């Protein structure tokens, strides 16, 4: 069930009404309803993988209790490693088995031996990377003594499977979400309205921006051999907006939906394309994953305490693991490596925390210097996205060669260019709205404070009208494949 589907538009109000009217007297019933709804939501994709989700939940729930109650450190370690290995084992099998089998066969063939890789038709269970990371953070936090083990199985299951975040995050932490699940939730009008507003903005980003950009990006990337360097640059820019609209739109819908149920999820995006350097970009892009890696990998590896070279090593490790998290493909690994390279100067010269606040805070416009920095950062990001989007390394390489050739100077031309004007205009309006609202949680969050009701309603109608009128061809959310 996609967030931008009619099915979800029916499912959500039903769960909402049941939640606040039928089960509002008891927290237990509310949580049971959330769990049943979440499992139904998940089963709509493929009910068979529900067993995997339930198994993973049971495993972490049980090992959590065992670890917490263990009096002996070795016993604690045993349960900890059992949980970690099974979780990563499942993730590794479903996500990386074929990649390793094929890469091994290729490596062997390079030394003259022929091996037929024993590949399986492994289907990736949707959301596995996300709910596995939920479970891992919970187990690690118990092991480190940061939290107690959750004894209520229903509450723990809701933490892992809460439907707004189940398939593509934000990746939650037990310390943040579990207390909310255990606490009686009261309906809050302002919160619910804000939730709906965020859902609307998320739908706009996904349906209007991402789906339309996807159409152009797909045409250009799928026929890259036929197009000039300038067209390929345009394709990469479209992909940059596609992936941002798609994933941040998804996150907005997820966060907005959770707010309808009185639950706050972690922020996932904070206007990353307005970043002035790559370090800032990574503090603003997929925040819940970046901070997960920071807390559970970068800091345990020594973080920045061991001097510059340790920081460099740890940064490369983080980007390598992060790229691998996205998928088993060399293109992701190069994408991660490129980002690690980009960030290196700021790590070495200790300028990585120069830009903490949002750009031009309290001002209408950025300075020329800031504008230049944003432009450079955006260009570097777009360049790295080429690897992220390309079908394989050769494909990416061919695109880059063309971009850096003489035909970069040609006027961009591709199939469907005639319908480009309104989309460019929409993207510009979108950038403008994002710029105006960049100091908020999401760009239209402060609408309530600034404008009277009739203007707000008019604005919402305009956004809905744009969603109807400029609806792009329906595309799967990009991050579902991870």
């Amino acid at each position, binding site marked *: 069930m996609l967030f931008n589907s*009619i099915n979800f538009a029916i499912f959500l109000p039903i769960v909402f009404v049941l939640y*606040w009217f039928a089960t509002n007297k008891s927290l237990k019933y509310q949580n049971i309803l959330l769990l049943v709804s979440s499992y139904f939501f998940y089963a709509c994709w493929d009910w068979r993988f529900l067993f995997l989700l339930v198994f993973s939940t049971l495993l972490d729930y049980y090992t959590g209790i065992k670890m917490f109650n263990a009096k002996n450190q070795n016993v604690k370690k045993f349960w900890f490693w059992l949980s970690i290995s099974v979780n990563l084992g499942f993730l590794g099998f479903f996500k990386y088995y074929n990649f390793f089998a094929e890469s091994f066969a290729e490596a062997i063939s390079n030394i003259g031996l022929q091996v037929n890789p024993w590949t399986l038709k492994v289907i990736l269970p949707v959301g596995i990377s996300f709910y596995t990371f939920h479970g891992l953070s919970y187990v690690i936090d118990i092991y480190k003594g940061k939290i107690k083990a959750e004894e209520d199985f229903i509450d723990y299951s809701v933490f892992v499977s809460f439907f707004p975040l189940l398939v593509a995050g934000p990746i939650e932490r037990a310390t943040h979400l579990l207390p909310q699940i255990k606490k009686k939730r009261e*309906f809050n*009008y302002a919160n619910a*309205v804000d939730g709906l507003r965020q859902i609307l903005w998320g739908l706009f980003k996904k349906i209007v921006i991402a789906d339309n950009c996807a159409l152009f990006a797909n045409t250009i990337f799928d026929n890259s051999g036929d197009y000039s360097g300038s067209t390929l640059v345009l394709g990469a820019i479209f992909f940059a907006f596609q992936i941002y609209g798609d994933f941040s739109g998804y996150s907005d819908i997820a966060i907005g939906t959770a707010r309808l149920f009185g639950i706050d999820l972690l922020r996932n995006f904070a206007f990353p394309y307005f970043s002035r350097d790559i370090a800032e970009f990574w503090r603003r892009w997929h925040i819940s994953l970046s901070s997960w890696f920071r807390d559970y990998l970068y800091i345990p590896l020594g973080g920045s305490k061991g001097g510059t070279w340790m920081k460099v090593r740890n940064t490369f490790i983080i980007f390598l693991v992060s790229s691998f998290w996205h998928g088993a493909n060399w293109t992701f690994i190069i994408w991660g490596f490129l980002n690690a390279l980009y960030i290196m100067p700021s790590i070495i010269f200790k300028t990585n925390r120069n830009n903490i606040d949002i750009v031009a805070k309290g001002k209408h416009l950025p300075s020329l210097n800031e504008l230049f920095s944003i432009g450079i950062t955006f260009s570097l990001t777009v360049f790295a996205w080429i690897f992220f989007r390309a079908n394989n390394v050769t494909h990416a390489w061919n695109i880059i060669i063309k971009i850096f050739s003489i035909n970069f100077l040609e006027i961009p031309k591709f199939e469907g260019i005639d319908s480009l004007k309104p989309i460019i205009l929409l993207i510009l309006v979108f950038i403008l709205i994002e710029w105006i609202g960049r100091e908020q949680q999401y760009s239209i969050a402060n609408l309530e404070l600034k404008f009277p009701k009739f203007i707000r309603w008019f604005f*919402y*109608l305009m956004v809905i009208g744009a969603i*109807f009128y400029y609806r792009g061809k329906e595309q799967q959310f990009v991050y579902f494949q991870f």
Partner: protein
Amino acid sequence: MKKFLFSSIAFSVLIVSLYTLISNTVKPKNVVSNDYMAAMIDKHNRIEQLNCPKIIFAGGSNLAFGLNSEEVENEFSVPVVNLGLHKGLGLNFILNELKNTIKKDDVVFLSIEYLLESEGNYELKKKTSCSYKEALKYYTYDLRAEILIDIDKTNKNIKSYKKNKKTANNLNPEIQVYSRDAFNKYGDVIAHLEKSPPKELKDIGVLNYSYWTGINELNEFYKYAKSKNVAVFFIYPNYPVSEFKKNQEVIEKLSKDLSDNLKIEILNSPYDFVFPDSLFFDTVYHLNKIGRKLRTKKLIEIIKKNTNAQQLINSIRNSTIQPKDSEQTKA
């Protein structure tokens, strides 16, 4: 909570009302459908008027563009209806249409495009049922698809409204080939016969092999037809030689699967209707005038060679009045 619900409902009502208002304002009025899919009305009218055992050709547009039904009718002296219309309707729709159409002693020749998918295009099915209401029985209603189609339709209407073109009719001569008027009374497209074809064929591509689940659907249909005392035969579609070469391996595998698993008698081999590219009109399944003539001639020979088919056709001929007489009665 009450305030929230009231506001949400009020806002939803506002959106739905505005949408309905806009949708109705921009809807083209009193447009008589001359759409290609509306040809289904005439095909079924003919079946109703004939009201006797007949030969039915069913499949996609390979039949609509690639058969001279009149010649077949004259050759066998048995009424012929060509139901072939569009492969985009999907196999399920085509077979459901047949199930609702066939009558005792009919002889059905199925010519299905290679690896035709079961479900087809919902928008096309919807479009067909807008012209021919009975078609609603041939597919399952999908609320989600209906809503999306309605939104798309409204969007298109807004665009044409803005351009002050309220009718869907287009005067582009190429489009006329894809219109209800393009068909003759037997259900064949004839408007393209004297037209010069576009430079390139559409629908070219590589077929991907996997066991065609359509075989099971065809077997189920065969069972149903048998229970109604209707004979069914399978014939391969026409295909251009360049595309055939490209997809030969897949087509041969498919042909083997069909020979091994299809319960319907197959009258020919895929090679029979492989013609030079120059004999095709605009897509890999649409023959031009010469190609159509050649295919019809070959098809008649193939049917004549098959004793079962020949016998069944003979028995129709013997038990019914001549088609020309029936036409006179109709008139």
